[in-house]
């Protein structure tokens, strides 16, 4: 996708989305706001997992870090929630940087292990530090806008989603993005060509954590009540499923995954919390049989339709 086409597409999508508040009721607006939140989460998680091949289990925890940083500052110290969200974003970025520097040097599964631990420890602290966080009761936080309206939160979350799209697009399609993908394709070959593998991964992880922190901060001030549910592993696996089902390592995959799964989970809400389990199983099956997700399936079918007999480039004599 060329830059011009991307920005045109983004503008078009933003325009269409802007019409939604005219036609949707409060409930459907809520679904869209949550969908946008998950879109930011999945797109930013994909930056690390899809493009540098490292799986973090602390993405929801970073969202929680953003939400609680901003929430506590606003609720306990009366800080302006907007400044809180910015500080929450920075806190998540710095924590991501620290965790990244510690674990990513080692490669392999160390990031996954450490983030899994980090995620649970963070959730337990949040749950138990009742005095500060009000534990599972949830912390009441002020809103971002004077007069509460779904439409204004919708536009705020949409602006954040646009920002996320631009940041991820610019990273992926920059010279740095070439190195991201090289690391994902073959770490050793990338290193042999001068790619600083650790630096690439730390950068991706830091940006990804910052975006999660921002999303979490905004989400908390939208819900007006933040609970340890935000940094839970349930949330983490939901984001993972969205990315894998939509299409890991592609730009639009996580976006498609986030909206379709969020909308779907609203329909099956009546069956309780089993939907995360079901999504996890679907993601597992997809990872085995369609590793490129919905996007991969769709593009394969489109290509087949366009060119029934795919010419084998390997047969081209050079």
């Amino acid at each position, binding site marked *: 996708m060329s830059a011009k086409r991307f920005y045109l597409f983004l503008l078009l999508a933003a325009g269409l989305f802007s019409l939604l508040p005219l036609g949707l009721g409060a409930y459907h607006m809520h679904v869209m706001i949550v969908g946008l939140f998950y879109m930011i989460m999945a797109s930013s998680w994909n930056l690390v997992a899809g493009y540098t091949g490292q799986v973090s289990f602390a993405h929801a925890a970073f969202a929680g870090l953003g939400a609680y940083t901003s929430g506590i500052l606003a609720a306990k110290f009366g800080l302006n929630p907007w400044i809180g969200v910015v500080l929450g974003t920075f806190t998540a970025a710095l924590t991501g940087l620290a965790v990244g520097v510690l674990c990513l040097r080692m490669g392999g599964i160390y990031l996954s292990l450490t983030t899994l631990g980090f995620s649970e420890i963070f959730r337990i602290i949040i749950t138990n530090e009742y005095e500060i966080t009000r534990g599972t009761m949830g912390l009441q936080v002020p809103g971002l806008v004077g007069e509460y309206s779904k439409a204004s939160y919708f536009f705020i979350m949409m602006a954040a989603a646009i920002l996320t799209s631009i940041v991820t697009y610019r990273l992926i399609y920059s*010279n740095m993005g*070439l*190195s991201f*993908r*090289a690391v994902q*394709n*073959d770490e*050793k*070959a*990338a*290193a*042999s*060509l*001068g*790619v*600083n*593998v650790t630096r690439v991964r730390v950068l991706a992880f830091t940006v990804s954590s910052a975006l999660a922190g921002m999303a979490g901060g905004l989400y908390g001030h939208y819900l007006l009540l933040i609970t340890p549910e935000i940094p839970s592993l349930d949330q983490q696996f939901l984001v993972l499923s969205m990315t894998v089902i939509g299409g890991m*390592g592609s730009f639009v995959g996580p976006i498609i995954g986030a909206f379709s799964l969020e909308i779907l989970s609203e329909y099956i809400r009546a069956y309780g919390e089993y939907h995360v389990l079901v999504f996890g199983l679907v993601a597992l099956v997809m990872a085995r049989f369609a590793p490129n997700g919905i996007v991969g399936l769709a593009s394969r079918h489109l290509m087949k339709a366009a060119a029934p007999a795919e010419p*084998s*480039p*390997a047969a*081209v004599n*050079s």
Partner: protein
Amino acid sequence: MALLEGLGLSKRFGGVKALDQVTFSVEDGAIVGLIGPNGAGKTTLFNLVAGALRADSGKVVFDGQELTGLTASGVCRRGVARTFQVTRPFAAMTLMENVAVAWVNSPRSEGSGDWHHAARDYLRMVGLENLAHIEARHLNVVQKKRLEIARALATQPRLLLLDEVLGGLNSHEIQQAVDFIRKLRDDLRITIFWIEHVMGAIMGAAEKVIVLDQGQLLTEGPPHEVVRDPRVIQAYLGD
């Protein structure tokens, strides 16, 4: 003058001595061959030079500076590029992007701007220009080896480590490839250190040959002397 020197390099894998106190030098501007029977330690030696493995003892000096302890990425940035015996293309990236990764990460690229022009030049050099926009996974083995050379050259090295690039070629193609590698050395003024199993080719192209056997330096010298060395003949043919 020696561009690359290995001084007493040793490497063990468990109980196996892959390299034992190997000292060698590669002269600036030369084509130097590295030969020896299977398991002699040739690729291990390359891995030590390229920073992919760390030596147990000994050191590597490149252009007067020590490389020992640098990461693979750091060695590459100093001006040493390599190819892999079993090719490692970035399978899901186009040939252009494969080459571009090397170019944008090279400290010798002027500016970090648009890589398209440079990438195409390097692909043209190895004759893969017409496949520039397909993904590397579609290439056959011979094409993948060419891509590895294009990528390595795009790092703009002073020393190029080639690990068996002639495998799978017929005799006519081997001659073409040897001419190509000589031309590379002359046109780009780089030094080439080259592992090869195709003995005829390396004997014709190299100014000096280093022979390894069971992790030890057997001998080194001009090709026509080395092939007559009874120890070399014995190493290859057995007792």
